């Protein structure tokens, strides 16, 4: 059996990739994808920890992961709607050009 540390390491790497991607990319769609990557990193960690023997076969981790998938779907729906609106107004999907509130 693959030790749980490997999963946690994978989760950490995925989360870092997502976080850095969110910070450095200006494309809003890519930023949304980065958020998805981070959420999935969390999911990996949750299901991995759920496999620990101290866990007594409860499925809290898996259930939690399903919740996160549902929330992620909702957030993407809202996020893409915002991106569409932004595109209609500014003809761009770059987040550094979305500065309507500033001016």
């Amino acid at each position: 059996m693959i030790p749980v540390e490997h999963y946690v390491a994978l989760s950490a790497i995925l989360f870092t990739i997502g976080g850095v991607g969110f910070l450095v990319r200006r494309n809003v769609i890519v930023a949304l994808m980065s958020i998805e990557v981070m959420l999935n990193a969390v999911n990996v960690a949750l299901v991995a920890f759920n496999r620990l023997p101290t866990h007594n076969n409860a499925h809290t981790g898996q259930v939690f992961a399903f919740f996160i998938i549902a929330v992620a779907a909702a957030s993407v729906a809202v996020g893409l709607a915002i991106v569409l609106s932004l595109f209609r107004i500014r003809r761009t999907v770059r987040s550094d050009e979305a500065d309507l509130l500033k001016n």
Partner: protein
Amino acid sequence: MKPFLDLFSQNDFSLIAVVLLMPLLGAFVNGVFGRRLGKQAVRMMALSAVGVSFAAAIATFIALDSAVDAAHTAHGEAAHTKLSWLAWEWMRVSGPNGSKIAIDLKFSVDALSGVMMLVVTGVGFLIHVYASEYMREDKGYWRFFCYLNLFIFSMLVLILGDSLPVLFVGWEGVGLCSYLLIGFWYGKLPNAAAGKKAFIANRVGDFGLIVAMFLLVVYCGALDWDGIQRHANDLVVTSDRPGPIHLWPIGGGKFEDYVIAGIRIPLHNLQPDKPWTITAATAVGLMLFLGATGKSAQIPLYVWLPDAMAGPTPVSALIHAATMVTAGIYLVCRLSFVFVLSPAAMIVVAFTGAATALLAATIAVVQNDIKKVLAYSTVSQLGFMVLGVGVGAFTAGFFHVFTHAFFKACLFLGAGSVIHAMHARIHDEERSQDMRNMGGLRRYMPLTYGTFLASTLCIIGFPGTSGFFSKDEILARVLIETPTGVKLANGAAPWQWPSWAPWLLWGMGVVAATLTAFYMMRLVFQTFWGDFRGWTIGRPSQLSKSHHDDHGHAEDEDAEDGDHHHHDDLSQPGPPPHESPRSMTIPLLILAAAAIVAGIFNPAAIKLVVSTFSFLPLEHWLDPVFSDAARGITLADHHTAHTRELVSTFGAFTAFAAGSGLAYWVYVKEKGKPAREMMLKVPRLYKLALEKWRVDEAYDKTVVSGVDALADTAASVDQGIIDFVLARLTALVVAATGTVLRVIQNGVVHVYAAVMVVGVLALGWFFVQPHADFTVVEQDGDYTLQAGPGPGYEFRWYPDATKEPQTKDFSETDNLKVHIADGKSQTVKLEVKNAFGRVGSKAFTITRPAQPAGAAQIREQ
């Protein structure tokens, strides 16, 4: 009627509530819904509100009468009886010596307020009927009746209030309604200014009333009528506390020399040998009277009343002639027992009244605006009333209030009827009120003329009319009665009137009465007699034809005149003036009839002819109210009184005959020629009188400009210091901070995200660090150390930091007990390991002081 009235007990006479609240209900309905209700409904509401109030007032009066009779039977003599109704307990204020003074919203009807109540609701109802026709074309119909009903309510509160504060509420209420109604046509600047002027002039008077209330609280410890009456003698105390009022040095201080930097400032020169003091009665009397001068338009505050005629004519009749302006006289009558304590205050009242009567009469003689003449005549008549109460003839003064309400209301409504007719021809506010444009109206307006003439005969004192009896009574009483006050607490008599004062007052009164007769007859002759002079007004084509051609005016000679497209043909002479509709003339008839016969309530002058005559209902009716005041009044002995009454009546009759005869000669016989000659002979005097002795201008130059200067100073302080330094400086600081902070708010989403990440990392770092901390509780040298909690914390204690720990490993023991001897000190150390295995530590040195009672001193290492 009797079973109905038996429903109410004397001390809980809730019928008063109906009298009071019906007009308030009318005001509410008309004010809130009036715009949507339409004129008919507004009219119904307003008239029924006042009508029901009047009916309830009559029922109340009947009940009062039977209560008075019952009291008379019980005591064997007339006693002061009143019906009262407590609405609710309003407030309690601190009185002298820690007492509490209850100020209740309580209303009562006694002989005095009962008569006033009937006059206000009765005359008020008639004027409402009149106004419902007079104001018919006005857009603000509902607003007008809302204000008018509210006025009746406020006036009733003023009259029926059982204490000075409740009276004051009504006092302010009528002031407000007066302001609203003077400025009813607020679109015109002079009207708005006149309203403001009335309001401000009355504020000066209100100041006096408020000060009087404060004084009464301090000296009498009561503000309701009965309480003040019981403690009235406290106002003339000479004992040390609260003692007489010091005018100089102010507040009873003492001037002593003041040495500053070796220089002696001789302040003791300012200290009089004996402090100048007045009794509290004088102070209260003068302050109350200041309030009365504001409301009742006496010198020096009368200037607002003539301007107040800018309001609709029914308002002038109701508020500024019949009811509100008599509130000041009512106040003096109500508190007569206070006034008579101070002959000094009374002489001020009397001379103010006489001077006002005279001054206003001289102005009225030369005015051309019909309402202005009546306005100054009102001021003058109010002066007579004040003169009457000023000499202690409260019944006579109040009788004049009563009769004046009828004839002056009738005069104003008659003038309104004339203006109504003139306005239909002229369509110009100012020229339709100018008497020079009238004349001959008796042919066109017989009813108005008849009623107007009847009221005029009353006001000028035609023998047998009400005005003759009331004014004659005042003049006679001036000679007979003298206020002498009561002995002060130390047995000394108060200051007494000089012997010439009554005769001077009488002389001023007779001259004023002569002028009254002259200007009122001048008004009648110019308005109703002779030929109509108004044909040419506003109709330039008629100029050539002029007024002497009475029959030619129907011809249309100037048809080529291009000026034909007005709403009526100006080349035509227009219709002749017409009589007013019935709902205007019926009130006139009723008022005129009442004015003529009102004299029967107190025809004292008949006593001169028939010495056994004793039908004086009003005097007997009011006797219990003024019986307490009688002790401060000295009457001339019977014989002298009779002689003086004869002299006075002869003088009054002469005044009437001379004044009206002169007016007849000048304006009818000579057709105004002598008046024009006088005008040319003394043009400057004429101009001065026409401009009302330039009193307004004098006030502008002194008081108003003084206040303006003060306001300018305050404004420059406001702009220079408050606005510039405080406001702008604060704004500058805020703006600068904002500029700096705005750099962070750059509106770029990923910068916010980065900041968030940094924040999350910082928080994470904080939680990863262990935080060693503990509190120390001391008891008799035993110190308990309690470590603060944290996630996954384990603790290791060092009771002495230099030595080994208490346990080798970290454990969950989060407290430690150590004992430290007197005067010793010890360093304690705590190590904390958290879930990540990181270790933090903290050490304290605890020193126990040598004194057994001393607290521990804790010093951090």
